[in-house]
């Protein structure tokens, strides 16, 4: 039962709302936990043990850290300043060890399930050269759905308790709900305890506005997924699965089509997720903010999969930037290498682990590692050329906020994004490189109108529907970029206009959704990560 399934939208969610509202307010969070575990059991069966194990480990690591903090404050009560410093040092060391145990255990499970076979595969290639036998064999691994998301959320919780940003949760079932809230368990967003826990435990009564806003958002997500993304899946599969048969403009079109498919699918799923939360009065954090308006690769990642980027920034980028080795380099660099080289070095040291983890997080494939390194190189290059670029803009009197300059920058960013997604979707790094090369082989602009694009599985009518869907999404994005929401505007519109828009959305999903002959049901892409 995925989020875009009729069973989820029309049966599961309404049933949950009834049970939730029927429960007394102080017990509603328990109902949410029961529903969340039931949902996880329905999609993952006995793999729920991993979720329960993660909950136990996360909760008790939090409690252990809280106990150490308590002991530290008691020890500091009658100490002088020097003693306090020593006490702080002692307990900081102990807390760091406890945090390390929790993080390492959580990551060990994730790494074993996700990367074991990748390691075996590559180790055997290396050992083949040296003629040494490999005592390990590849195994059939079953990855629990959502493990990459809830593991990061659990690590974030433990780190926040360690840093003292939040108090450790004392009730294990509340920790369990924070980690397993059913709308976000499959694809995120990766939430922070300080942002969502309070709302989860509040047990707000159902409200007409929340249900109406929630269901409109859910249908908007279904529109993106069923009308645009699933339709685009047809040509994308045709080209990426048989890339040897295509070259030139077709490969470029496939890369663009996949980028749109992925955006419509993932952001559409987030609309369903956020809409589902909204039904219960719970506001989960936004995961997308008009990414195609970005004017650089760095800005794109501040607008795309925001919760993952924020997680990496908070728990990898900043801690690495503040680590001893980076600080030592900073001191050394300022004395011996100059400000520019020092800052470039700091950026490289802090960004490398972020982008390596970003690539690996998506899966155990060299193409994902390449994808991470691609953005690492581009963002670092952006930092390296910034002083020179700023000087050129000044000399040439080019204003960064000029419309023509923004269009050029956005266009450049689109090329970067489409190229990245080509490698991301390709069946391996070798296939990605081959596709990238064949894009320049016999590139013929005439292929755009000579009917070639109609041989990829979509009819002219399909292409019109996709284009109309993209325009609708772009218009909504434009309103959001201006600081408003379409839902907010609709809320102020006369009742007949509002209901016409709602019905139009529902019927668009039902009539123009990619169902039936010629289309295949497409699983949620990010649920596989």
């Amino acid at each position, binding site marked *: 039962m995925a989020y875009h399934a009729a069973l989820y939208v029309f049966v599961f969610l309404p049933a949950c709302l009834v049970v939730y509202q029927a429960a007394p307010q102080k017990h509603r969070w328990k109902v949410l936990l029961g529903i969340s575990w039931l949902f996880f059991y329905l999609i993952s069966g006995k793999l729920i043990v991993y979720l329960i194990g993660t909950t136990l480990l996360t909760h008790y690591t939090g409690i252990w850290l809280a106990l150490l903090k308590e002991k530290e404050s008691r020890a500091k009560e009658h100490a002088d300043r020097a003693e306090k410093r020593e006490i702080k040092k002692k307990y900081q060391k102990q807390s760091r060890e406890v945090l390390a145990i929790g993080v390492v255990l959580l990551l060990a499970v994730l790494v074993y399930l996700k990367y074991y076979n990748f390691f075996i595969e590559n180790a055997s290639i290396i050992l083949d050269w040296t003629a040494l036998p490999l005592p390990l064999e590849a195994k059939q691994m079953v990855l629990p759905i959502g493990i990459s998301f809830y593991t990061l959320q659990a690590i974030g919780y433990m780190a926040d308790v360690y*840093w*003292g*940003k939040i108090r450790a949760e004392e009730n294990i079932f509340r920790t369990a709900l924070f980690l397993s809230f059913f709308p976000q368990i499959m694809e995120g967003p990766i939430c922070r305890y300080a942002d969502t826990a309070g709302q989860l435990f509040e047990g707000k009564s159902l409200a007409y506005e929340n249900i109406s806003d929630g269901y409109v958002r859910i249908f908007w997500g279904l529109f993106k997924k069923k009308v645009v993304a699933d339709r685009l899946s047809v040509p994308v599969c045709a080209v990426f699965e048989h890339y040897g048969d295509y070259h030139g403009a077709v490969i470029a079109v496939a890369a663009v089509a996949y980028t749109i498919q992925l955006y419509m699918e993932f952001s559409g799923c987030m609309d369903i997720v956020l809409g589902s939360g909204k039904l219960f009065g719970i506001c989960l954090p936004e995961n997308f903010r008009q990414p195609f308006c970005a004017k650089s690769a*760095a800005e794109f990642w*501040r607008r795309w999969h925001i919760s993952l980027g924020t997680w990496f*920034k*908070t728990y990898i*980028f*900043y*801690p690495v*930037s*503040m680590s001893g080795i980076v*600080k030592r380099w*900073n001191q050394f660099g*300022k004395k011996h290498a100059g400000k520019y080289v020092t*800052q470039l070095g*700091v*950026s490289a040291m*802090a960004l490398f682990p972020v982008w390596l983890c970003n690539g690996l997080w998506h899966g155990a494939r060299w193409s994902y590692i390449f994808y991470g390194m691609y953005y690492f190189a581009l963002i670092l290059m952006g*930092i390296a050329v910034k002083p020179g670029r700023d000087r050129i803009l000044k000399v040439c009197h080019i204003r960064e906020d000029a419309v023509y300059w923004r269009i050029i920058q956005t266009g450049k960013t689109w090329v970067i994004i489409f190229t990245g997604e080509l490698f991301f979707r390709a069946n391996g790094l070798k296939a990605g490189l081959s596709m990238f090369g064949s894009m320049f082989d016999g590139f013929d602009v005439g292929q755009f109108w000579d009917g070639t694009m109609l041989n990829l599985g979509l009819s002219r009518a399909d292409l019109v529907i996709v284009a109309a869907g993209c325009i609708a999404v772009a218009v909504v994005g434009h309103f959001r970029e201006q600081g408003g929401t379409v839902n907010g505007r609709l809320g102020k519109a006369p009742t007949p206009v509002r209901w016409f828009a709602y019905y139009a959305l529902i019927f668009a999903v039902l009539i123009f959704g990619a169902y039936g002959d010629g289309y295949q049901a497409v699983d949620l892409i990010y649920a596989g990560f």
Partner: protein
Amino acid sequence: MDKILEILREIDDSVDYEKETELIDGHILDSFGVITLVSELEDEFDISIDAVEMVPANFNSAAAIWEMVKRLQEN
């Protein structure tokens, strides 16, 4: 406080730091700007800024940065 304004102006001199209260929330200072700022603050005020301090509330305005620096100097 004047020293903080000076450091901030070295990073980007197009902002009115005496009035601005959304340096982070308004995306005026990006992560790299914050890292540069942290490094300069550590040198100038002989303090150590840990990752735990990296929250918008500590960097949203020159006054907030000054409060953080004073707190860390006292510890």
